[in-house]
């Protein structure tokens, strides 16, 4: 009978908290978006499953060895954690968990080590998170694979479109300012690190967002990752109204001349040039841009095709699976179901809008100075979200002039946006890290 009761208490039906139930609903919404609506399924599907798994009551997939020990350990075990956190002998589980979650880095690491040395294991998702995201390795490897998939040809044919990729980063920093203002007026309570991590959503670059959030505001990582990937999927809906509002029909019809062909040597030298600039100007961007350029160099050099293939396929796929599940670890109800998430969603949308607008306006500004005019529609591609944003530019351009193919021209600012937001990320790490 006692055993039956214990079993009943172990079941999810008995133990499920409302927050966990709500997060499961969130997970199903994400699955719907990923599978039926095609919202960045490569990431959102694993994130959704990770969210489901981490919210299974009592399974403890997201608990570290310390949390396992505090929640399920014998009184003697728990006493050791009371001692570690300097709590009174009558402190209950909630107080212990509170102390554990509030602990600074040093104390936190000691707690996890203590749990491990007492024979408790880290939960599966906690392990994945530590290995892939906390270590910073997974976003970097994805960036390497993205580099190996990127063609800088259109950018090299028209380097001044790099300016469009620069302008679109206003989305990032404008949003940082927005988050800071929300705090200033007492609406929210973000630190500048948190504001920066939220702003990077505007970079429209999933791995960069996860990388920065894991360094500056890991407590917001779940919401930031979900917002970043969702808005990247929504680019075809978010951008066109803004693009049309800021341009005239005539501007949208501007035809751009055929891009010159770019030699193999230029393509090989470009990632090296970026690397050298990183070394000279912004060392803090070295991990992200270093791996990105490495991937691109593997592709363009043409001499390590098997490495390039692997980094574009097997390796990036494996890392994506783990990265997605690991993001789920940050999708617990107390981390996700709060006002912060709503603010992040609102600010993330603002970031995309500001970035899009800044790109378009920069293109219009450039047209004041250059001889051969630029179609301002390609400015919006500067937010990156490769290649979605470039396709949007192409589509809106075709609406204005059915003979106007902007796709290749938009690929220039599109990949420039990747570099731009990696540079922005480097500034944040250097300024706040």
């Amino acid at each position, binding site marked *: 009978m006692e055993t039956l009761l214990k079993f009943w208490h172990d079941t999810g039906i008995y133990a499920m908290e409302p927050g966990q139930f709500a997060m499961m609903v969130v997970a199903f919404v994400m699955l719907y978006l990923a599978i039926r609506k095609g919202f960045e399924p490569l990431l959102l599907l694993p994130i959704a499953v990770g969210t489901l798994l981490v919210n299974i009551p009592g399974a403890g997939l997201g608990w570290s060895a310390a949390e396992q020990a505090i929640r399920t350990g014998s009184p003697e075990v728990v006493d050791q954690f009371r001692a570690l956190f300097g709590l009174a002998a009558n402190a209950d589980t909630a107080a212990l968990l509170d102390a554990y979650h509030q602990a600074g880095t040093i104390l936190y690491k000691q707690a996890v080590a203590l749990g491990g040395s007492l024979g408790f294991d880290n939960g599966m998702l906690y392990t994945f998170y530590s290995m892939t995201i906390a270590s910073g390795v997974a976003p970097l490897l994805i960036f390497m694979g993205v580099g190996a998939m990127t063609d800088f040809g259109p*950018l*090299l044919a028209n*380097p*001044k479109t*790099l*300016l469009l*990729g*620069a302008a679109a*980063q*206003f989305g*990032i*920093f*404008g949003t*940082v*300012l927005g*988050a*800071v*203002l929300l*705090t*200033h007026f007492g609406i929210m309570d973000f*630190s*500048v690190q948190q*504001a*920066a991590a939220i702003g990077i959503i505007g970079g429209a670059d999933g791995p960069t967002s996860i990388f920065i959030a894991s360094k500056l505001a890991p407590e917001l990582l779940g919401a930031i990752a979900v917002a970043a990937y969702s808005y990247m999927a929504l680019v075809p809906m978010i951008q066109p109204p803004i693009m049309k509002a800021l341009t005239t029909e005539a501007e949208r019809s501007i035809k751009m001349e055929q891009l010159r062909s*770019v*030699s*193999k*040597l*230029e393509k090989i*030298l*470009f990632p090296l*040039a*970026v690397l*050298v*600039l990183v070394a000279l*100007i*912004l060392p803090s961007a070295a991990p992200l841009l270093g791996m990105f350029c490495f991937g691109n160099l593997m592709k363009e*050099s*043409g*001499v390590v095709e098997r490495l390039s293939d692997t980094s574009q396929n097997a390796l990036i796929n494996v890392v994506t699976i783990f990265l997605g599940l690991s993001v789920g670890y940050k999708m617990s109800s107390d981390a996700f179901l709060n006002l912060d998430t709503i603010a992040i969603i609102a600010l993330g949308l603002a970031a995309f809008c500001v970035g899009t607008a800044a790109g378009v306006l920069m293109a219009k500004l450039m047209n004041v100075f250059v001889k051969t005019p630029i179609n301002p529609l390609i400015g919006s591609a500067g937010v990156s979200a490769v290649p979605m944003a470039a396709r949007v530019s192409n589509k809106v351009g075709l609406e204005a002039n059915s003979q106007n193919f902007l796709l290749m021209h938009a690929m220039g600012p599109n990949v*420039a946006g990747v*570099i*731009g937001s990696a*540079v*922005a990320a*480097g*500034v*944040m790490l250097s*300024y*706040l890290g």
Partner: protein
Amino acid sequence: MSQLMSDGLGLMGFGMGTVFLFLIVLIFATTIMSKLVVKFAPEAVPAPAKPRTAPSPGVDPQLLKVLAAAVKEHRSRRK
């Protein structure tokens, strides 16, 4: 102005400044690089040496290889 506000503004100025600085320098670097390449190595780009992939003498005709590769691929997938 609060510390947070000044931090936010500082980050903004600083960040956009660096982004533009970096990308403008990159424009110049790229342009110069391209000009030098066009001038001194005008699509000379010799097919880079591929020591590991040099075809061994006496290989079968191409189509046979294509089909063989596809068959092998197919078989390994079925497992």
